[in-house]
């Protein structure tokens, strides 16, 4: 029989570790935005095949089946993105939905990055950056919950990116990110470092 010994020293240690970090509404919005986006881009069959790959019984035969299935999934999801683009996207996943089908292959290794900006008085906000050719119409942001922060998700390949927000027509740096020093278009911008998933 193991007796659990919790004395004063262990109590103090546990209390020191129990301090809660403060609530972070912007982090919450980022998580929700990312969850929505990933669901929009992940095909359920891909998850099943990913599970196969992790099993010890993985073999050449299953690898061949996986390769074939990947081709099929790529074709199906490409069509799905194309269909989404022709609809009327109104969520934070718009950046993904706006991807042309032809770009799906090129973006396969891109990472979904949630963007959040607290600009309550703004009427239109979009994300611009080297990942969308600084096109102010490519990635419009949506108000979270009607009157909350602005959110959107961009797809960016691993590496260093420069971006900004277009707030009512004015280029604005992200207050939560490091400033870019190599801006050559006459406004402030921020740096985004994307790591491999």
């Amino acid at each position, binding site marked *: 029989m193991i007796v659990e010994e919790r004395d004063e020293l*262990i109590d103090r240690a546990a209390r020191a570790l129990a301090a809660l970090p403060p609530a972070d509404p912007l982090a919450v919005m980022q998580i929700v935005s990312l969850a929505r986006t990933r669901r929009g881009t992940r095909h359920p069959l891909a998850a099943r095949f990913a599970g196969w790959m992790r099993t010890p019984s993985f073999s050449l035969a299953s690898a061949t089946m996986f390769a074939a299935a990947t081709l099929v999934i790529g074709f199906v999801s490409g069509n799905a993105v194309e269909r989404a683009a022709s609809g009327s996207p109104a969520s934070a996943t718009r950046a993904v939905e706006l991807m042309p089908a032809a770009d799906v292959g090129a973006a396969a290794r891109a990472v979904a990055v949630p963007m959040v900006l607290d600009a309550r008085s703004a009427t239109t906000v979009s994300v611009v950056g080297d990942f969308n050719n600084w096109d102010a119409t490519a990635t419009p942001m949506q108000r979270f919950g009607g009157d909350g922060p602005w959110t959107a998700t961009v797809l960016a390949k691993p590496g260093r990116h420069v971006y900004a927000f277009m707030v009512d027509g004015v280029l604005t740096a992200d207050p939560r990110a490091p400033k870019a020093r190599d801006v050559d278009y006459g406004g402030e911008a921020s740096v985004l470092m994307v790591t491999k998933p």
Partner: protein
Amino acid sequence: MNEIDPAIPLRARSGDEKAFIEIVEFYYPRCLRFARNMLGNDQDAEEAVQDAFTRVYDSFPRFREDARFDPWLFRILANRCRTSMARSRRHRQMIEYGELPLMAVAAAPEEEFGADWAEEVRVVLETLPPEQREAFLLRHVEDLSYEDIAAVTGAGLSALRMRVKRACDALRARLEKVER
């Protein structure tokens, strides 16, 4: 209040987005605390928490109506932390076999003491084997019952009690040295 109203995960399960936001708001600080204590690194912890909630969102259809939400969430989070630790271990091995043995020049735990108590506890905590650290945190910091910890980790009750006891013994021995 440590647990969320059980109706909220069920609402999220049936597709209610507001319920999912309530869950993230409610559990974010606790999840971040657990991941920071497990991983000892803010950036890895934030990534693990983000990943865990994304998986929760995707996996809601598999959440059983009669199940409790806390162990289910912490099981997913603990898995993400283990994956993150495995990734860091691989990265560390690459550094150790590379040109600069960065880990070798890091100060020994004893030399790092002198900061505040919480920092000292964290340094000692990091020296525990991951499964002992995980069991200790779930039991004494997250206040989960052994039955819930068994659901989170998949380990048996007596093995878990042994892990917690060993963690307490090791922490006590090292923290007593610090206090002297």
